[in-house]
């Protein structure tokens, strides 16, 4: 077996495209995640544009009902699984090792595997457009709409198989971050000294690891129903479509917190930095995060109030859902408390963080209103839900993540974006977002169901829908401004110092962009907000600013070597899934590919033998 590793020489340098493909550096993987997610965001955003175009006026026939179904299915699935999650993962990758004072994640090659699985899963998903067999059953794909008799082409197979691939990627990444955070913290960084973003990543990762197996089972059962003749969700064979709903939402509700907790973590970093005071009530934020993580498992039934689970189940889920609003509310008060009396600097990351708090309050309040099951009976499957979920996912998650993009942009690139363009981006997105989604509250309460591709004049929904579509144009301009800001920042941004924001986190103590080895000397942590402690001490000693850690010769620090096995295994795994869609022979080839990859991987030492050290450790 050692012969396999010897056939192709191990990659040694980080140069060129091949260097990116074989990289195991968490910072590069983070950048790859971020760029892929933002690209997919533009694709899914255009799908949203098609939806808004179709709904702009009554009795519109720009695209038919079938295309419309495909558009909202693709838009939602891509945004949830291939934009928000990987964008969060991008920050996990880039920031976590820096924030805890580590040189890399615990399993660098596994990290690369997660990224490639995600990318190939996303590509497999979009191949459905090329063969024009696009998934069209909504992002939660309720059975038995998804079964063969009702969904004849392979669209739903594309959906379930690519989600299986993406699920593998997420679970592998989450395992990696749990181990990294638990084992690789710098000396002195006790759990209650970790930055909030690290805490939220830990909770999110635990949720991921526990939630994804449930959807995996659901997806496997669906795939078997569609391809191998079982009847898990087909009533005519005795199956029960409600089981799918249970499996989906037992996963789906923790998933909601998987989407929002990283954004909450980012905001909890940004608000103190730009208020120049420590986070108010740090332990409360942490414990509310933990409580949200645990209670997130006890509320899935609120997605199913109208299914007919009975009054007892509905009451229980009403109560648990209202309870989970409490820790969320605690966090909001802590953020406001952080702002109180601070010297607030309205830079772009701060604007996005404030936008997050404001919009998340709106989304949270509408959320509580459908926690009450009687009122949910009125709101179920209307645009009121669409308004709610966009306030928490767009106004919440995306605003939080954008805040992170601008906050860490100087750290990632070493350059500064232009503040004016950043502010233009924020205001366009903020105004556009409210223009698009606020009218949907009213539309929903007026009875407009979601997922209809058109409506007649008499309902009187035309004006508000037109307003929402105009709002989309503003969002679109905001996204263009975002691209301009990033490109301008990359091309002609002024050099950012290592600590442009006077921030509290360890990642700001090293140069921007960080060297491959991160920290030449692993820092000693004395308390929360370590870098503020260091800077305060320097100030007391009469030093005005603390310089970045000086660079050292990279050859003196031993880093994991690049490897081509992760991308190989990812190709093999995706072929297995793709084979089920076309020819089983392809699955077989993919299986062999992945198997060879695993053997090569296990026989490859984590670091190549190094002339400078002469040993493998």
């Amino acid at each position: 077996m050692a012969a396999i590793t010897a056939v192709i020489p191990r990659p040694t340098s980080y140069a060129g495209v091949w260097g990116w493909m074989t990289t195991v550096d968490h910072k590069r993987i983070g950048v790859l995640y971020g760029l892929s997610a933002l690209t997919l965001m533009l694709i899914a955003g255009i799908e949203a544009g098609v939806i808004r175009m179709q709904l702009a006026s009554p009795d519109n026939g720009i695209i038919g009902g079938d295309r419309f179904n495909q558009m909202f299915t693709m838009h939602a699935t891509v945004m949830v699984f291939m934009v928000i999650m990987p964008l969060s993962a991008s920050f996990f990758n880039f920031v976590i090792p820096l924030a805890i004072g580590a040189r890399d994640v615990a399993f660098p090659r596994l990290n690369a595997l997660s990224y490639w699985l995600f990318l190939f899963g996303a590509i497999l998903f979009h191949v459905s457009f090329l063969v024009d067999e696009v998934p069209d059953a909504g992002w939660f794909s309720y059975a038995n709409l998804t079964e063969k008799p009702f969904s004849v082409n392979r669209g739903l197979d594309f959906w379930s198989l690519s989600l299986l691939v993406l699920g593998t990627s997420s679970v592998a990444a989450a395992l990696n971050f749990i181990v990294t955070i638990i084992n690789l913290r710098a000396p002195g960084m006790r759990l209650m000294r970790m930055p909030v973003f690290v805490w939220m990543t830990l909770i999110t990762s635990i949720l991921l690891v526990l939630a994804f197996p449930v959807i995996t089972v659901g997806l496997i059962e669906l795939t078997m129903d569609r391809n191998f003749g079982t009847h898990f969700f087909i009533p005519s064979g005795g199956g029960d479509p409600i089981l799918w709903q249970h499996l989906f939402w037992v996963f789906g509700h923790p998933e909601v917190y998987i989407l929002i907790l990283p954004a909450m973590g980012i905001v909890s970093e940004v608000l103190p930095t730009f208020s120049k005071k420590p986070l108010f009530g740090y332990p409360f934020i942490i414990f509310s995060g933990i409580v949200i993580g645990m209670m997130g498992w006890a509320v899935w039934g609120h997605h199913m109030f109208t299914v007919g689970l009975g009054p007892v189940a509905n009451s229980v889920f009403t109560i648990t859902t209202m309870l989970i609003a409490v820790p969320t509310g605690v966090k909001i008060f802590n953020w406001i408390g952080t702002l109180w009396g601070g010297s607030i600097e309205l830079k772009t990351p701060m604007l996005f963080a404030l936008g997050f708090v404001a919009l998340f309050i709106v989304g949270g309040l509408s959320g509580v209103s459908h926690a009450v099951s009687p009122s949910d009976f009125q709101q179920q499957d209307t645009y009121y839900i669409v308004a709610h979920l966009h306030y928490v996912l767009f106004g919440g998650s995306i605003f939080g993540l954008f805040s992170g993009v601008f906050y860490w942009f100087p750290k990632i690139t070493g350059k500064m974006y232009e503040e004016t363009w950043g502010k233009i981006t924020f205001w366009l997105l903020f105004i556009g977002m409210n223009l698009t989604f606020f009218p949907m509250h009213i539309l929903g309460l007026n009875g407009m169901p979601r997922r209809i591709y058109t409506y007649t004049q008499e309902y009187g929904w035309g004006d508000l829908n037109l307003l929402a579509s105009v709002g989309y144009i503003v969002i679109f301009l905001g996204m263009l401004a975002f691209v301009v800001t990033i490109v301008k920042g990359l091309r002609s941004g002024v050099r950012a110092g290592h600590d442009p924001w006077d921030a509290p986190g360890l990642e700001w103590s090293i140069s921007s962009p960080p060297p491959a080895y991160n920290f030449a000397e692993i820092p000693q942590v004395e308390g929360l907000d370590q870098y503020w402690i260091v800077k305060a001490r320097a100030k007391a000693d009469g030093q005005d600013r603390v310089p970045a850690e000086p660079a050292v010769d990279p050859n003196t620090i031993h880093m994991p070597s690049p490897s081509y096995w992760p991308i190989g295994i990812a190709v093999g795994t995706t072929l297995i899934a793709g084979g089920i869609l076309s020819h089983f022979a392809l699955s077989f080839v993919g299986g062999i590919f992945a198997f060879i990859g695993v053997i090569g991987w296990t026989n490859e030492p984590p670091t190549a033998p190094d002339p400078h050290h002469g040993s493998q450790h």
Partner: protein
Amino acid sequence: MWVFLGSDCLFFGSLIATYMVYRGQSLVGPYPVDIIDVPITTISTFVLLMSSFGMVQALSATIRNDQKAIQIWLLATAAMGAVFIGFQIYEFNAFKNEGLTLGANLFGASFFTLTGFHGAHVTLGVIWLLGLFVAARKGRLGPATSLDVEIMGLYWHFVDIVWIVIFTLLYLIGGFDAGPSVPPGG
């Protein structure tokens, strides 16, 4: 590894839940009572449980650095796992001949999915054990690398424990289920 096993718990939890929800809901035969053969599966269950003993011995030999014993016990554990898989293949084949297929009824679907995925786990474990056996033959296993064997052991014991649950629920409790307890539509 513990975290991964936690994840796997939810995986099997969901599969077992599916089986339990659909227990006694099959509309057409064959029903469990017609085909489940408790005695034969008891033998294979016994073999699988004994393999856990082999795993413990392999780990203890690794810590003692007893090279000979490491190889013997790893191979024995893998062999017992393979025997279990052999029984399962025989069982699946026999069931198929008696008319129980994936598509026959809910019992078939949930039974084969659950035990099939368990079988896949055992198969993976056997391959992993053989990989360790190769490493042991090259003399790579010893007290310094005992964690490799310990992690394998965690996985193996986990797969065993899952089988105890499956055997109890599907064979000892569910194995004598006849047709639908409620007539169709009732």
